[in-house]
Each structure stands twice: as C-alpha cells, then as structure tokens.
C-alpha cells in the first residue's frame, strides 16, 4: 500500500509541476560581522536576556569558575565525560572528596536511565561552536557527551572556546560545510528550557534544564 501511495503522490506532483519562476538567485541577506569583543558581548547579553548565565574565564583556570558555581548551586553531583574533550582537565582539577562529586558513566542510557532522570543534578559538556546574533550554542553530541546530557539534568554547564564564536547560523553552516556530513543529532541551544503557554507568561525549566551556564574561554 505504501509503495502505491508513494508512486501515486510523486506521479501527481510530477504531472502538475507548476509553471512559476523557480530561480534560486540568492538575494544577499545582510549579515552582521562583529569583531570578537563585540561578538562576545552580543552573545552574552542575548543569552542573559533569556536567563542563562554567561561567565568569561581564562583557558587555564576555568575549572575554578565551574567549581565555584557548582558549589554555589549546592549540587550533589556533576556528570562529566572522562573521555570527552574536557575530561582530563576536570578530573585533574577535582580533589577526591570534593563536592559536588564527579560522575562519569559510559554505558548506554537504557542501563542507567533512572539515575540520569531522577538523581543527576547537573552535567557539563563542551560545545562545537556558538552564534553571537542569537546567543546560541552549537552542540554535536558524541558517544562521550551524549545528547541527553544537555537535556535531562536540571543544570547544564557548557564550556565554549571564544574562537568558535561565529556571527550567524548561516555563517556556521557555510564555514563548517555542514551539508558535507551531518551528525546523528545537531543542536542549537539558546537558553534554559522555557514556555509561555500559560497566559503568555514566561516560565523557565519546563522539560529541559532549568539553569544553563556558559563558561566562555577567552
């Protein structure tokens, strides 16, 4: 049945192909180009306007920023990827009995779903790039930093290298040639989870993280 449906639909579309102009001459949509300092400012202010926290840190000392924030938020544990790009730095910076305790889990989600859903307080991940115009983090989750880590725990820390901060989404797609090969899942994250479904009143932390904290390495 499905195959018949497929052929019938495609046949109808082909038979009635429209006669209007289908030229794809690109009109140039004006795109902002900010110097790096302004890019960071724009990125920071737009993310802060949706109640995300953005902190600038030195590439050698960012774990201090992470630690102090994690302590301030009174987190019991912090999920991190031992084999991910931040793994070694975090592990080296943490003392054995230091709070919050570090959690590393390399098993598939089905094997520890309950604890991910109901016991993990926070996760820290890296990010591939970011977008100044819209205050967006670009994540291509990996086997080390799975996609649920940026979604399920109530607090999400993201570490961003300021060199990876682009002006616009279009620029990221073009510069990194995304059409050459897309990952399983690519994400733009632009704040903590939110909704305005009740009387157009903004409420944060609906289904995703309530807190999004970005540490920018400059």
């Amino acid at each position, binding site marked *: 049945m499905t195959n018949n449906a497929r052929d019938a639909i495609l046949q109808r579309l082909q038979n009635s192909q429209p006669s209007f102009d289908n030229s794809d001459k690109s009109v140039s949509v004006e795109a902002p180009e900010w110097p790096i300092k302004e890019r960071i400012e724009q990125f920071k202010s737009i993310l802060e306007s949706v109640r995300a926290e953005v902190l600038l840190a030195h590439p050698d000392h960012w774990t201090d920023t992470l630690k102090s924030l994690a302590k301030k938020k009174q987190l019991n544990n912090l999920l991190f990827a031992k084999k991910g790009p931040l793994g070694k730095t975090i592990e080296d910076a943490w003392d054995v009995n230091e709070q919050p305790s570090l959690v590393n889990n390399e098993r598939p989600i089905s094997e520890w779903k309950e604890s991910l*859903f109901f016991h993990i307080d926070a996760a820290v991940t890296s990010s591939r790039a970011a977008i100044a115009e819209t205050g967006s983090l670009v994540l291509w989750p990996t086997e080390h930093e*799975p996609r649920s880590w940026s979604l399920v725990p109530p607090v999400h820390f993201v570490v961003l290298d300021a060199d990876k901060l682009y002006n616009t989404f279009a620029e990221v*797609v073009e510069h990194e040639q995304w059409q050459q090969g897309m990952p399983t*899942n690519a994400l733009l994250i632009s704040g903590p989870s939110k909704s305005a479904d009740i009387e157009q009143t903004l409420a944060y932390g609906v289904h995703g993280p309530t807190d999004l904290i970005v540490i920018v390495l400059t």
Partner: protein
Amino acid sequence: MQQSAEFHTRVEHALANGQIKTSFRSAMDGLMAKRKAAFPDPEALETLRFRGAQIRANSLSKLHELLEQLENNCHKNGIQVHWAERIEDANNIVLTIMQNHQADLLIKGKSMVSEEMELNRFLEQHGIECIESDLGEYILQLAGEPPSHIVAPAIHKSRQQIAQLFNEKFPDIPYSDDVDRLTRNAREILRKKFYAARVGLSGVNFAVAETGTLCLVENEGNGRMCTTVPPVHIAVTGIEKVVEKLEHIPPLLKLLCRSATGQAITTYFNMITSPRKQGEKDGPEEIHLVLLDNGRSRIYEDDELITTLRCIRCGACMNHCPVYARIGGHAYGSTIPGPIGSILEPQKAGLDKLGDLPSASTLCGACAEVCPVHIPIPKLLNRLRFERTRNDHAGATLGQSSGRTVMEAGIWKGWSWVHSQPRLYRLAMYIITRLRKLLPQRIGPWTQVRKAPHIAQKTLHELALKEGFNDK
C-alpha cells in the same frame, strides 16, 4: 448547509464570550508588538521575506524531485520513510509501528499534522494511550479541547482555569494558580512519561532534502525528549515541508522564530539526521518518517493556489487578523484556524465542508503584509470564494461550485444582461431611482447594525447630462 449553520453558531457563541474577547485581544497585541520589535529594520525584513518566499517557491517547484532525494538520503542515514495518501493511511502506519514494538504509550511533541490526523483519538480506539508533552497541548488534552492557535495552543485559557483543571485531574497536588508552580507540576508529571514511553512522536518544521535531516523548532525541550529518550521516534509531516538545501534553513529559521513569537531564536533547534549509531549511548534506535499528502498534491495542481503550500506555520497571520482576534481559534472549526487555515483547510476538506471560511475575513490585508513567505492570502480567499460559486468545472479545487445557488446565480445573470443593453439599463435605473422609497429598509443581517443604503434621486448619468457632459 448544516456545516454553515454550525459555523455561524460557533461564531455567535465566540462573539458573546467575553473571555475570548479579552484573552485573545491582549495575547495578539503582545505577539504583534514582539514581532515588530524583532524586525527593527523594515528594509532588512523585506529582503529576508523575499528570500524566504523564494526558498519555499523554489522547493515547491521541484517538490517531487526533492521528496525522492529526501527519501534516498533518509534511507542512507537509516531513517525509514512511509508515504500516506490519506489520514487513515498515516494513522495505520503509526499504529503498525506501535504494535510492532508492543507499545501502549505514545509520548508526543507538538505536531499540527497529528492534530490533522486526529491521531490521539485513533490510537486510543486501539488501546494506545497518547500523552501530549508540550505544556499548552497537555493542558488542552486534560481539558479535552483542540488547540485554538498553532503556536500557542492554550491561549484561550486563563491561569485560573488551568489551575482548576490540574486540581480536578491531580487532586493530590496542592492547588496553585502560580504559573511557575503549574509549570513545575507539569514537568514532574510528564518526566515520568518521557521516562516510561517506548515510542515518541514529533512533527517536522523543515525536512532538508540534500542531507536527509529533520528539523524541529521548540522552547520547552519536550520535542527533544520525544526524539531522544524513547527507543523509537516517529516523525509525521506534510509532503510540502521539504526544502532543498541546508543553507536554506538559517533564513527560514530566522523568519519563523521572529514572525511567530518575536524571539531571535527558540531555545532548541533540533536537527535529526539518523538513528543512534554504533557506539552512541542514547537517541532512538529506529526513526520513521511519515509523509502525508491528504489533499496537498491537489492544491499543488493550481498555479495560484499552490502558494498556500509555502506556509512555514509561524501563526503571524492569525496574530494580526482582526477576525481571529475577535472570534478565537475554535470558531473556525478547522485544525488550523485564522487566515492561513481559511485558505488551507477548505482546500483539504473541500469547499462543500469548510466553504464558509474564505468568507470569514474582511480582506483587510494584514495577513499578507506580515506573512514571512509572501503568501497572498487575501487574493487566495477571493479565489476560493470564486471557486465556491463557479460552474464551469475548470478547476481542481475540491467542492468547487458547492456554494452556488439558483437565486444568486439568477440575480447575477440578470444583472449582467441588463448591463449589456443600454436602453434597458437606463430604463431600469430610471424606475429604481423613482421608486426608491419603496425599496426595503431591512436587508437581512446587513441592517441589524447599519441603515439600509439610500438610492439617489437621479442617476449619475442624468446628473452628468445636466452638467453638460456629452452623451456620446
């Protein structure tokens, strides 16, 4: 005729309902102001709208090629593609997938196509529980109501009504009409459902042919939950949602977010290209894409009406529509309300069923002025009014000429006959102007709120002659 009477009854109820009036008016005012602020530079906005219209028109112009390309790339990526002519077919495809996995719970992200399919009702008849996870949709599911806006589905409900509803359905949770508290309660209830469900369903905002990527736009994270946590993900979409290239996505995303809610971007933009790969720890192991026609390929046949299919579902046309703001979404009686619904839905269901909708407009033009992809909605409303009464059977529109009445057709025939005979025309005008006092003072609904028009003592022709204009 019965459908027409039901439509008018719904409109009268809506007009008499003070809460609809206040909640929609204030919400629409807010959304209009936010959109305006999101596009501070009118010139840049026009360029972007032009680009958006061009991208959508270009995609539609080669739709069959792009759908084949999308299917090929999805297959390569491991996504299974299903085709459905009608909503029954699409529903059965979803049911079969559910049954193959012995799943009795479906967790759903927001999807207007699943509303069009009435999927929840269908699956429930087969013993499968559906849970809406978008906060607004979840509230409506508890209330047993359809959405009244495509972006903000529960816009017609007050905080107090929602609090009352939660209290009735979940008496163990303490009553609260605080928005943060209500949101937190919904989070806790639904988190258990995300945790338990074996199958998640979502819509699709854009499908990219070149890479086989499904894009989802959302703020809450429920769409990501539905497409990340359950082992099986089903995406349902209309065949018109495909775009050619990945580079087409950034301008469309910008137009969609800013036109819909005035946000620079939504919290999450989720691009799904394949099921879980070897070594990956999460994400669905199976992804199914259901491509639904349901009348879209018929709309596609008409070179003018085809522009209906450019729509990216931002809702700006309803936010700016004076009729929608006054009667709300439910009065339309169609899945998608407002100006876009009034052109799209009668074409899908047939003018014999929803033929009143194209008349539920003042043709003020606000919808076309804000449409991010330049759909000439007022022109298409007029076109469908014509389709409803034409009798030459020359168009593809479903339910064509269903609104044609012998009396109305006779009146216009007489009118055109009189106007083609100068002597007869003058005679008729002479009689009408002299007997003007005898014309009826009550003319149906027109005179309920207005005075009947007064006909002048003399025709313009007579006056012109008197002023010395030459008759020749």
